[in-house]
């Protein structure tokens, strides 16, 4: 059945591609200024799709099932920003800050913290400290972290004081390890101690400077709320993986059953979002001011440039992590064959859990950017998820470059298609593109090797 079409398929695919390219080319030639505008709009929409597709591809190429929680994660991220910022920004029109939500997320964060402590420290300290003491201490620590998360959610107007120092310390630690990783892989053990001392003191200075800057500027609250909601969505993703998917995979459920289970999660979470926030669309504050710049006849908003930059930064960071770090090698090994990876000593549960955390954080970031660009509503998640899915299929499923390319391509084609059609047909265009693509070019633009 599949091979029956394949010789004709390539011809049809070629004709379709030529038609699309010719159409866009004709459009660019007839009115270049407008084309620039549409192209830029396409890129800025495509950046969101690309972020979505990158996270999606990361998870899919590791565990090989479609996790529809992704859509809920995007909505969760966007609503997280709304939850933290609306009271101040909109002057208390929406009283959304409720103790129930805070407690639920505090419990999730405490659970994740307990799991992290258990996997990282328990095995090492078991020999030296008696396990009951260790368990009690770990439990207390996890509770403290959970209570801290609850406090951050409870007092969003003091976000910069509560969360700013933490963000500064985390950034400094991350940069310190990045620096250590860079110089140790370049120089080996030579001058290790001195360089470590230099890097540590630089990181300390950075932490102090950044912490001071964040605490003293209330304007940073919006950006901190992005970080908080990405982390929260990631924690939920990790908790879902560890609490649910691991169990299902132990029972060797098929990918389709996992898909249906994640559909249930998506259904429950988006309905919960509309219970807490009501289903009407809501705005998010404008992050960089809305005065557009003019460039060659096209109006360009700073925020859209930021979105494009965010997609590229996320892509490059993920690519470097996957290519050159031990973690990345483990992820690729699990993607190739999970059983073998486990046999050679990779702790697959931990690695996959981190992958879920990172991928979900990407989805949340895409949701936040989309929310700032248009508006947020509880149903946005499913549509964003489907767009990310389409982008990763168009780009070649399981390939990171493909996800980036597919996302931008989908955005640009969508925008050029609604030039002549009306704007309301853009979802139809996206799905028709998908069906044509899957029919005639099923392996995607850049297939996974």
């Amino acid at each position: 059945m599949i091979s029956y079409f394949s010789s004709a398929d390539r011809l049809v695919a070629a004709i379709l591609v030529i038609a699309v390219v010719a159409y866009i080319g004709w459009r660019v030639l007839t009115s270049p200024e407008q084309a620039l505008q549409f192209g830029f709009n396409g890129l800025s929409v495509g950046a969101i799709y690309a972020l979505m597709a990158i996270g999606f591809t990361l998870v899919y190429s590791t565990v090989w099932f479609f996790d529809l929680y992704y859509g809920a994660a995007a909505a969760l991220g966007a609503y997280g920003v709304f939850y933290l910022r609306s009271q101040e920004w909109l002057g208390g029109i929406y009283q959304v800050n409720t103790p129930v939500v805070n407690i639920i997320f505090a419990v999730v964060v405490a659970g994740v913290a307990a799991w992290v402590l258990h996997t990282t420290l328990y095995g090492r300290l078991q020999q030296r400290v008696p396990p009951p003491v260790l368990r009690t201490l770990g439990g207390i620590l996890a509770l403290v972290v959970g209570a801290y998360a609850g406090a951050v959610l409870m007092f969003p107007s003091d976000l910069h004081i509560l969360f700013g120092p933490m963000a500064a310390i985390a950034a400094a630690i991350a940069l310190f390890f990045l620096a250590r990783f860079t110089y140790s892989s370049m120089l080996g053990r030579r001058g290790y101690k001195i360089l470590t001392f230099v890097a540590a003191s630089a990181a300390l200075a950075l932490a102090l400077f950044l912490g001071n800057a964040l605490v003293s500027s209330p304007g940073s609250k919006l950006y901190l709320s992005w970080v908080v909601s990405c982390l929260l969505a990631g924690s939920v993703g990790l908790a879902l993986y560890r609490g649910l998917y691991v169990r299902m995979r132990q029972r060797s459920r098929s990918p389709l059953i996992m898909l249906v289970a994640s559909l249930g999660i998506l259904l429950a979470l988006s309905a919960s979002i509309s219970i807490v926030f009501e289903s009407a669309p809501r705005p998010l504050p404008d992050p960089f001011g809305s005065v557009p710049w003019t460039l060659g006849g096209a109006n360009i908003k700073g925020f859209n440039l930021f979105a494009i930059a965010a997609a590229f930064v996320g892509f490059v960071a993920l690519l470097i992590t996957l290519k050159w770090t031990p973690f990345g090698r483990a992820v690729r090994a699990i993607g190739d064959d999970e059983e073998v990876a486990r046999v050679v000593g990779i702790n697959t549960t931990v690695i996959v859990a981190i992958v879920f955390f990172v991928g979900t954080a990407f989805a949340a970031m895409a949701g936040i950017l989309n929310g700032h660009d248009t508006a947020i509503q509880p149903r946005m998640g499913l549509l964003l998820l489907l767009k990310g899915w389409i982008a990763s299929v168009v780009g070649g499923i399981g390939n990171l470059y493909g996800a980036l390319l597919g996302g931008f391509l989908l955005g640009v084609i969508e925008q050029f298609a609604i030039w002549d059609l009306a704007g309301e047909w853009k979802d139809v265009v996206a799905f028709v593109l998908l069906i044509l693509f899957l029919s005639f070019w099923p392996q995607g633009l850049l297939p996974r090797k």
Partner: protein
Amino acid sequence: MLTRPPSWQRLSELARNPLQAFALSRNNVELWANLLIITFAVVFMLWKGATFAVTLGTVFAIWAMLSVSLNLVVGFTGLLSIGHIGFFGVGAYTVAILTSTTAYENLRTGAIPTFGWPFFAALPVAAIAAGLVALLVGIAFNRFRDDIYVLVSFGFAIISFNVFLNLRGITRGAFGIHDVARPQIGSWVFDTELELMLMAMALMVIVVGISWFIVSSSFGRVLTAIREDEQVAEVFGYHASHYKLAVWVISAMMAGVAGGMFSSWTTFIDPNSFILLESVLLVSIVILGGLATIWGSLLGALAFVLLEEGMRFLPFLPQEYVGQARQVVLGILLVLLMVFRPQGLVGRYKL
């Protein structure tokens, strides 16, 4: 396949030794699911009274038609389709356009002609229209499988919703279509709730009968073979794609009939009845009830309808959140079922 009733021998043994029933019912999820849902339905009907039961019966019949027809595709053929609401919408819109007599001026396209057909003439056309759409879609979708099938069927649901919403020259867009005709024989118009429920129930019985005939015939056995292993079915000389296309079209026609009945019952339709969410709910009913059993789909539809109406009477739940709360419950149920019982309550097949 309806779940098999207990044999006479088993029943006579039970009559001699009634205590055996406890041993038999232990760990028998199917039995408990049946008992629980049916008891709940009966108690609910008795408590709320006849008018309520009649309305509920119509809603149940429509959802039952949809879920039984979807089970033919998902359960018996193994194609997880989330786009079934599109065919429901095609049926509903066909009946509404053909029977509605309300004039409608569109600024862009001018007046839309009205036809004023009777309901019973429009219903077969609705089934045929849904079948034709399904034929086109099915030919395009036939080469996909598994999770890609899920994705493209999502796509079909979104495309059909957008067509209903934006093709204003035909569907009147977000304004919807008013005054859809009620079923009428001669001068006898079915406009009480009871007559409509009986009508819907009659259609449901026809749909269930056809489905039962399909799954117990040799055609149904070929479908099961395709579900289990498509290549083996091909080796035995069955064109798997033809069979899949046939059952897809039949199932879509049933959904079209359900849609026609729906639009005639509400007498007003707009695109919001055919959003993607409804399709997801429909799939979760089918999986909840059980894959590859007709009885399971009926049970799932009953549970779904009761869940909504039952939650309406929870004292601590505000009325406007009932729909969302039902989705939360349904989502959690779906997750629990997938972990502990992936074939659904009375199902015969795991995805």
